């Protein structure tokens, strides 16, 4: 359906600027995924309304990380481009990657939280 719409648009109308076409394509794909994830149409409808913001936005932390990730995804180079063309083995990147790996390793070692709030008189 999306491909058909694209073909028809190109035949009948002037080309859409990338600023518009890229987010539109992205949104179309994301919304189309919902059908694969939902058990039935009513569940899909619930998810659509949540995606449109009906459930509210909880905390700014997630919003900031989503916006940041979106900026990188839309404006930055593709991961294939980074991995195969741009990335060169260098000491500094090995050191940075080692630090991140080390923190991840330690994070994996975290266990239960032993502190808890007890009295609520």
């Amino acid at each position, binding site marked *: 359906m999306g491909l058909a719409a694209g073909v028809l648009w190109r035949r009948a109308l002037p080309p859409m600027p990338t600023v518009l076409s890229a987010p539109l394509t992205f949104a179309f794909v994301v919304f189309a995924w919902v059908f694969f994830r939902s058990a039935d149409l009513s569940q899909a409808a619930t998810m659509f309304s949540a995606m449109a913001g009906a459930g509210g936005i909880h905390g700014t932390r997630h919003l900031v990380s989503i916006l940041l990730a979106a900026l990188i995804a839309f404006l930055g180079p593709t991961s294939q481009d980074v991995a195969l063309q741009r990335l060169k*083995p*260098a*000491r500094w*990147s*090995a*050191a940075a*990657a*080692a*630090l991140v*790996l*080390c*923190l991840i*390793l*330690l*994070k994996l*070692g*975290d*266990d*239960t*939280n*032993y*502190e*808890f709030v*007890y*009295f*609520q*008189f």
Partner: protein
Amino acid sequence: MNWPRYCLLLLIATSLATLALYAAALAVDPYDTGRFAFIHRHGVPLYGQRMADASRGRDPQFDSAVIGNSTIQLLEPSRLDANLGGSFVNLAIPGTGPYEQLTVLGWFLRHHTGNVRTVIIGMDAAWCDTPRIFGPAGESYPFPAWLYARQPWSYLGHMFSYKSLEAGIRRLNVVLGHANAARPDGYNDYEAGKAYDPNAARARMINGGVENDQAEDAAPASAPPPGGDRPEFAALAAMLDGLPGSVYVALVFPPREVSSLPQPGSQGASLVASCKSRAQDLAQSHPNIRVIDFLKDGAISQPGNFWDGIHYRGVVARQIEDAIAQAKPALR
């Protein structure tokens, strides 16, 4: 540089950085357990009792300890010092049962060999009501037994974590004087900053007696059949057997609000009775053990003395402190 060399460098750098951070965390000794430590000053940041009591329990300035959960935590060390002599630390940890409490007692005794004066143990519902498994499986809330373990292996395992790094930084801040340390004597007054409202307290009593604690005391996650063995009493007896005759041990049955007392003739009442008789047996076999029983209907169990079904007010804590002092035997 080529990719194979890059991978090798990454591997070496990751291993070295991880080892260095792990070693740093161990050396800073975030929980002041004394293992592998380079810092020999006592004290920890404002951790909860579970994490802080390893430090308090080995602090040589104390020779006497209060062991139990929130139903004994209102006993004030400075008053106990004045009433009984010695230097008290309150090692009560909310939401714990016999397994956790005896783990802490063992830690305290091992670090005060030959220097123990008085031990007060609060025997509340966790000891007396429906038995829970005596071991980690009986914990109501996660308990860091690895901090209090005899061998360092589980400690070494748990210290490999991001949390211990964070805790290490907090401890460094305390040692350098940039942050406040937790109270060394462990006194944690749950009344502090709260105004007593008799109606709110009564509502909590009607709603089952206890605020957060009730699920734990009423229905342990997995319990052996009632009336069976109580291995915690055997374990306690073994620990007390090892103490010199000069040590006063007070087994305290903390009071409960009248509606939280077991109904006469009920299974709860018989469990409490058998619990008390086990404590009496211990007292008979050791000259310096005393049983101090507030778990009965009387003036002290009136609703106005309680915040909920089991957490009493300061005025009751003062009576318990006095009773412990009055029961103290004449020691050699």
